[in-house]
């Protein structure tokens, strides 16, 4: 995906043509919608998480709900678990993507069938990925049946628990399946254009395979790779569908916890649910700003095309 379209600069003008000033006017509707709905949503959420109740007005705003949140051991457990899942999924997806991109670039050209296959996971909604992974990985799922058919394990108990499990293996698998193509295509867009020629230069200068990877490939792909990884981390950290369907009832992942508190019959839990949503938004926003900074810094240095 694009934190900012890369192919810029050829036609971009220094300023608008003289005599006309259509810029901001044309940009206003879009910005208005985003500021009103996105900004408005976060702001209204903030008010409520600070203790504002529609009936009581704006009195008694306090950080009590946030304070209660960070003292709640269950919240902290959820936070740790969410960080673990997001970080592990990102790490595994990144490693596979680098290997895959290197392989695909070396296999001379990404052929049409391969590029079509690689785009399939990008189009499948997370909800369907979760459903498919459940049908695949539960103790009565397709893989367990395959194992039984091969004579590896013939009981439900004989198959390891991969969904609703302690280590969130199924959840991580769902994210990895979904995000590997995204990271791979991000890397390939950089590697395809510059990587190959530079590697030839490296080869003529007698650089070994590891040296070529370490000093040519890695620096070339690093900005895109880290930005892609941060985007994946941010997304995984805040996603709801996959942990809702594949997670345990305790401990929950943070987005599930946020929604559960928000929709609790006990209305007092609602502000804490919203506060949790804002904590998630803050973590995600910081990650994205970091990704954006890395990309625009390296673009200014001419490291990303």
């Amino acid at each position, binding site marked *: 995906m694009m934190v900012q379209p890369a*192919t810029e600069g050829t036609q971009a003008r220094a300023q608008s043509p003289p005599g006309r000033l259509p*810029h901001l006017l044309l940009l206003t509707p879009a910005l208005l919608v985003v500021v009103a*709905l996105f900004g408005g949503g976060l702001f209204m959420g903030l008010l409520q998480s600070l203790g504002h109740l529609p009936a009581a007005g704006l009195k008694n705003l306090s950080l009590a709900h946030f304070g209660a949140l960070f003292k709640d051991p269950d919240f902290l457990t959820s936070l740790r678990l969410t960080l673990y899942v997001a970080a592990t999924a990102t790490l595994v997806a990144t490693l596979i993507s680098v290997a895959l991109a290197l392989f695909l670039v070396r296999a001379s050209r990404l052929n049409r069938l391969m590029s079509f296959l690689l785009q399939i996971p990008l189009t499948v909604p997370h*909800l369907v990925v979760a459903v498919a992974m459940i049908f695949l990985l539960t103790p009565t799922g397709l893989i367990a049946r395959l194992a039984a058919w091969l004579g590896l394990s013939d009981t439900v108990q004989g198959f390891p628990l991969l969904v609703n499990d302690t280590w969130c293996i199924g959840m991580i698998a769902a994210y990895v399946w979904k995000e590997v193509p995204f990271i791979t295509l991000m890397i390939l867009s950089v590697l395809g254009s510059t990587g190959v020629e530079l590697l030839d230069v490296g080869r003529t200068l007698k650089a070994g395979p590891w040296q070529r990877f370490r000093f040519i490939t890695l620096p070339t792909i690093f900005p895109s790779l880290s930005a892609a990884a941060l985007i994946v981390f941010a997304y995984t950290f805040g996603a709801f569908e996959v942990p809702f369907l594949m997670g345990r009832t305790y401990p929950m992942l943070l987005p599930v916890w946020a929604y559960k508190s928000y929709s609790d019959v006990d209305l007092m839990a609602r502000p804490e649910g919203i506060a949790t949503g804002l904590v998630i938004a803050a973590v995600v926003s910081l990650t994205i700003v970091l990704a954006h900074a890395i990309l625009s810094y390296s673009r200014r240095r001419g490291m990303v095309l």
Partner: protein
Amino acid sequence: VKAPRTLRPLVFLLLGIAILLPFAPLVIWSFSESWFFPDLLPARFGLRAWTYVFDIAGAQIVSALWQSVAVSAVTALISVTVGVPAGRVLGLYQFRAKNLVAVLLVLPVIVPSLSVAMGLHLWFLRLGLTETAAGVILVHLTFCLPYAVFVMWGVFANYNPDFEDQARSLGASTLQVISRVMLPFIWTGVAVAGLFSFLLSWSQYLSTLIIGGGTITTLPILLFALMGSGDRPVAAAVSLVFVAPALGALILTTKSMGQRNLTGVW
């Protein structure tokens, strides 16, 4: 080191299997009548689930299908209409606040919609927008519109406005310049922007639930209910219906536009 030639097809094969494997249980379950563990394949295949989806439960599922289509189509239409002018400004001109605008637009795409929807709910409640299609469309616009803007930004970065000046010097009106010069150049981009917004709105679950309050039952809302009910064949069939537009779009765009197209949706 060159990858050994024999290894190459093997890796391709493994990759193909890894990508397609999750679809296998969906397809098999949707055509199964009875499938007990540890049988590898169902004891009986049949069309029960599909008949159920389109006939018996038809009213409910087809209605969900239409609500999904309607909400996503309107969201996409508004996203593109508002997104094209914004993308034009961002793609063609340099200005100081551009970086800030970029960050402002990228945040709604990735900040989870639950954070926004929970806050919006109270506001929409006062405006009478909860449990209405309009409210759901508005909350979907929060992230679909920025997405459309990004696509159009990329399109306009490769667009040459000199043609417009030429048309204008030949006496074309603004409307003619837009319809005869600009639109023919950017229409594939517009289609992709519309498609992305449509698919993004199509796959929304939680924001629809929070703002729609269960009154607006789109396909994902129904699918969650089905997963809870434990009817695997029907859940599998609905999953396939749910994923169909995106896959169809992928096949269509691969044919008409070649390589880089759907790389943005994830």
